[in-house]
């Protein structure tokens, strides 16, 4: 039995310890927001957070994540529970086209903003170049990250003042 905490919930899975986290999330846990793109850590469609840091779930054996905290796009936010600033910015900038890569893009962007509240263009390039988008939404992803950074800073300022 492989024990994982997914989006805050303790789960157990009867799988081969070598199974990549991606397939455990999608097939066993039924969380399909995380996508399969290449299987060799080239495209970023499968990015999730392991203890808050972005990983390529398609090449991470579940054994390596045992007992640890996985966050998927479903754990980030939705219309009912409230959207993360990055998700809100993605809607405001109308970023997604086909949308298939966007869970991974959003997970990479959130991880970037956590460690760097105000990234430069070059820092966005470095953090986001592992995520391929075939629809070419890169200019809007860049704008989305900047808009989310501003929104997060404004919220922090408001709560600081209050």
């Amino acid at each position, binding site marked *: 039995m492989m024990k994982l905490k997914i989006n805050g919930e303790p789960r157990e899975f009867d799988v081969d310890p070598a199974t990549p986290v991606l397939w455990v999330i999608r097939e066993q846990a039924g969380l399909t927001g995380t996508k399969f793109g290449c299987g060799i850590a080239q495209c970023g469609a499968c990015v999730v957070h392991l203890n808050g840091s972005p990983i390529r779930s398609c090449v991470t054996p579940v054994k390596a994540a045992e007992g640890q905290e996985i966050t998927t796009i479903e754990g980030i936010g*939705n219309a009912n529970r409230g959207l993360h600033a990055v998700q809100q910015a993605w809607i405001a900038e109308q970023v997604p086209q086909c949308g298939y*890569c966007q869970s991974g893009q959003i997970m990479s962007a959130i991880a970037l903003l956590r460690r760097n509240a105000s990234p430069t263009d070059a820092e966005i390039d470095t953090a986001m170049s592992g995520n391929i988008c075939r629809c070419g939404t890169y200019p809007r992803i860049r704008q989305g990250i900047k808009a989310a950074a501003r929104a997060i800073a404004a919220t922090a300022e408001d709560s600081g003042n209050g």
Partner: protein
Amino acid sequence: MGKWTRRAFVTTGILAGGVLAVGVAIRPGNRKLKVAGLVAGEDETLINLWLKLGPDNIVTAIVPHAEMGQGVHTTLAMMLADEMDADWSLVRVLEAPAHPEYANYALAKGYALGDQSFPSWLLPTVDGFFLQATKMMNLQITGGSTSTPTTGLHAMRVAGAAAKAVLLQAAATAWVVPLSELRAHNSVIHHDASNRSAPYAEFALGAAELDAPVLPRLKSTEEFGIMGTNVQKFDIPAKVDGSAQFGIDASLPGMKYATVMAAPVFGTQLETVDTAAIQDMPGVRRIVNLGDAVAVVADGYWQAKQALDRLPVQFTASDAGKREQSDIFQQFSADLDDAIAQGREETDLNKGDARAAIAKADRIVEAEYRVPYLAHAAMEPMNCTAWVHDGVCELWLGTQNPLGFAADVAKAIDFDQENVLVHNQYLGGGFGRRAFSDYAIQAARIAVDSPYPVKLIWSREEDMRHDHYRQASISRFKAALNDAGMPVAWENQFVNKHDPVEAPYIPYGIDNQFIHFAESKTHVPWGFWRSVDHSLHAFFTESFIDEVAVAAGKDPYRYRRDLLSGATRFRDVLDLAASKSEWDRKLAENWGRGIAIHKSFGTIVAQVAEVEVIDGKVRVQRVVCAVDAGFAIHPDGMKAQMESGIAYGLTAALYGDISIGRGAVVQSNFHDYEMLRMNEAPAIETYILNSGEAIGGAGEPGTPAIAPALANAIFDATGKRIRELPVKLHDLRVPGHSAKDVA
């Protein structure tokens, strides 16, 4: 996006026979009756094939096209809602089921008859004829950038306007007032004289009883209220929280997972498969020999893939298995030579006498270009979930052609087409690939003998090696120049003509033109690839006209402009791109700019690319794009499609190279079929010109011009002319130029 339910599909017969006929008050024999059970929920009224109205006054546009990121659901709903004077906040969208009634007869009509208008008395006949024709052809296609120009104009706008007309008529009857005293606004009908108003929904049943006008008056551009605005796209909220359902996300009780390996050399078969070697591996359920491919079914994808990777397989030999990419280009060259030597050129376009003009010209410019095969590499690998039960085959997948897929699958597993049900999901990229049904046929053939539903997922490697490829091609040119340096003759010969017909044609005023081709078949499967033949011919023609301009010692923008004096729509778009890019502004050392213009799918696009070349490495810094699609229904969506088309075309121009080795595709994944990434993406500025001409497409026209704009910019920066794509094949280091010089 709403989705029709499986329950609705399965229970159509009961509903159509009983409940609906009474509850929705549609008369027997009405075409709406047949589909109402598929698309109308409880208490909803299907006003016409394309529109239903709920008791809560919600208008739902029923759109017969697949959403693959091009925004088609939103754009078409806007067209319907605007004509209907609907309150946009009350508008929803539902993708039409794969049903013959939703075949895009509008698309067929657009293809066959262009944008002709018909007298009203003839329209029912014409529509009836084309509906029959499209049903027979199973056309419910999303492609060819046709959704907005054809379905939008001929179905959505007409449906919206007709719905408003019958709702007003029903209100006039209910209130016993003259029709002329009523007005509709934001989904409410007003009778100002008696100070009465009521929502559309109150008149839904009455309206459904009426015959809608076949040719209702459509709004003029000045009357548009929703068209031309940037409403938020319907599909985006579900695409930021992981809830959007793509084909690969289908989930059914007891479902198993399959993955497949087809014979690497196209056209060959499995010879031996040693199933014993893997049948005891964990989770493995079945090993299925499909003749030209083998599939492993297991409890999970990863288990299936592990087993497939260890499966000993041998394939039949064929002559194609000896072919190299260089052989294919040699064959093309030989076939082009032979066509001329033997005088059997296939004429594409011939006006004046180009050869005579070239023969007597003092000045001739010649060049030969070539482009490689390209894969689509949609982010979502090909996949299909199939469940065969109770005499039906249900499919969950993303497809650009649901009815065509149903027909193909029915034939493959020997079912009646009506027993193949296609549940179309969001497409994780289409680009033309998802118009080919090979993956659906495989899934159905695996599932047909399975007691459980099977989700077939192709690995990325399978996706790349068993695509339907944008063709490789060679194109040769000769131009004759007069004393002023202007071209008087243009001869162009290329291999393999597909669609659209006009792809190799140039907008320039050159009196003598001879465009011809030779067919040169290969064993590599051909496919529609974003903009189809335009993707290669724009590179060929717009690179060559640039070479001609340079040979004439002229500025490439002004040279084109002079040749467009008789084509003012083109000239206006070219001027817009040039002026917005500040064409005459001096660029820094190692920078260059290039321009190109091309019309495809009714839309003219001009692009100026600015590149920086340092140590032989090209960085595209800026792209200025001017576009005239007649009228942009959703301007921000048009910009998004230009950005997308540019990124797709740039990826191909810089890196895209599918090559054949020993008969099979050499490349396998994103490490050797590279994609444009964030750090390489240029700043893109798009400027829209609404000329008022017939509405053109948006999904594809952004792609063709970027490759020549890029190549022309590289020439400007380095003096090196790119005559073969992709750019990565070329050594662009310029002696004396280096990063140090820039500093």
